[in-house]
């Protein structure tokens, strides 16, 4: 059976890698090193890459912090309506990036709710939908549910007696959190954090809906490819984005 399936698997793997190989070949544009050297010295592209990575890291960090707090709270406490609350919490998973972008505009855009409230309260209209801040808010909105669910699943399967042992030795809530809970959650936080990072770095719908001039990498790639018909640059940027994301994913394993 091995002899039969191995060729099938090779074919499958080849199919898998051909698109990426094609991408890399195009990105070379005849002068492999020159293309990448050009891009990595062009302030516009470097800036875009840097901003994208930074935004994704910030989103991932904020998501993890908020999700751990919410997830642990929901695991440890029983109260009426908890099941409903958890179901509602996962609602954002049901909306695509485009709709999330749409929501951010409704909330923090020029006719948005936050703007109206701040106008009424402080006489100043708060508008931040069309910037990195809006993007940050949107990404946070659809990243948190996934990680909250992960934290809840991991926390439920934790061995409670380890925390009880720590408490019997005099450890208070913070010490238990630091020495027992967080180390035990770490593997699943790292894995789901990496996925969160990969999703944020590649998200396009939200950014595109919010504004066409937000300078995140997927937008830059889209612009180069579709509007400027600059295939080589688009391919090279794609490869760079892929390498960065893949590195993070592998690191998390």
């Amino acid at each position, binding site marked *: 059976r091995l002899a039969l399936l191995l060729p099938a698997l090779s074919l499958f793997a080849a199919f898998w890698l051909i698109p990426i190989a094609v991408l890399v070949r195009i990105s070379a544009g005849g002068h492999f090193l020159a293309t990448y050297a050009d891009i990595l010295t062009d302030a516009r592209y470097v800036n875009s890459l840097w901003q994208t990575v930074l935004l994704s890291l910030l989103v991932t960090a904020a998501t993890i912090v908020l999700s751990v707090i919410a997830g642990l709270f929901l695991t440890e406490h029983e109260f009426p309506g908890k099941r409903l609350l958890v179901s509602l919490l996962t609602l954002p998973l049901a909306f695509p990036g485009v709709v999330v972008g749409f929501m951010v505009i409704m909330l923090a855009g020029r006719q948005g709710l936050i703007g109206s409230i701040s106008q009424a309260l402080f006489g100043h209209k708060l508008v931040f939908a069309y910037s990195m801040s809006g993007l940050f808010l949107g990404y946070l909105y659809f990243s948190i549910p996934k990680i909250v669910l992960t934290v809840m699943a991991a926390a439920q399967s934790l061995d409670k007696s380890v925390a*009880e*042992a720590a408490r*019997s*030795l005099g*450890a*208070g809530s913070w010490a238990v959190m630091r*020495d027992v809970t967080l*180390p*035990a959650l770490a593997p699943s936080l790292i894995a789901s954090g990496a996925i969160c990072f990969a999703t944020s770095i590649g998200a396009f719908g939200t950014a595109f809906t919010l504004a066409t001039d937000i300078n995140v990498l997927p937008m830059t790639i889209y612009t180069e490819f579709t509007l400027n018909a600059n295939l080589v640059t688009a391919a090279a940027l794609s490869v760079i984005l892929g390498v960065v994301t893949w590195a993070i994913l592998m690191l998390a394993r």
Partner: protein
Amino acid sequence: MKLNSIPIRLEGCAKTYGSNARVLQPTSLSIGAGETVVLLGPSGCGKTTTLRLIAGLERPDPGGRVYFGDEDVTAKPIEERRVGMVFQNYALFPNFSVRDNIGYGLKIKKMPARERAQRVDELLELVHLTEHGDKQISQLSGGQKQRVALARALAPEPRVLLLDEPLTALDAKLRETLRTDMDLLLKNLGVTTVYVTHDQAEAMVLGDRVVVMSNGRIEQAGTPHEIYFNPGSRHVAQFLGSLNSLRGAYRDGEFHVQGGRLACPERAAGLAEIHFRPEDASLLPAADAALRGTVASVQFLGDRSRVYLDGLSETRVCVEAPSRSTLQPGEQVGVHIPPERLLIMEGE
């Protein structure tokens, strides 16, 4: 190493989960300073709940009180009670080394590093793990893990040591060795100890006093000898060892059963059933005996044999015999049970 010890007192402690799941009926129990009390019973009998009430991991239902010495600790959480706990599944910190596990309680107490290291060394020696101090937890065997857990619990000099089925996860041979080690250690430490188990051999060996529980109540409490030789109920007798029943009737100083008769104290008058343990009967040639049966099967166990007999009473009876006995199924044998060894439970 010698620890200070205090007495513990539970007063009317019950525990109810949700609206009507009462796992522990109102229970009072006094434990002397330095005493080792074993809570023994099948799973679901309330023994672990009792331990957790003492630990401060559960609060008793309103009305129940827990005293450590003269201090009412009912409202104190576990981290303020100064108790040492050992769990069935070890509950070690997987991300710390053996040394860091043992020293954890001292670090929380902010003991200086040098003093702490010295104390950890002493404890490693106490549990015979000196050469394993720098290992990770995952590199240890089950028996070693449990010794680390014990050292960790003892490190901050607890006032009370609480053990929740500490040997259950280990295999039979190792359990026996650790039981003996544990016995020695507890006797030397002199700390007030509450030990939960479902294994009667563990209870007998380790307990100064054994508290037999079932269905959320204390059924009987006493020294191992008391509860083994004078069980208060058939349930306790069965839980502590094997039990045979003979159905019949008392007449003129003898109990008459299907297989004959046997001398019996007058206390059995009016009872339809008396009991005895397999090791208290002896086998003799059938010709000489007033009580006879037929060998149904012989189980060779190495250090002894168990002989199953039919015809003594309506149910099969089990008697211990030396392992070199050459009895064969079908053989007729006589049975002698000294009257003082009969278990006569009037309260049934």
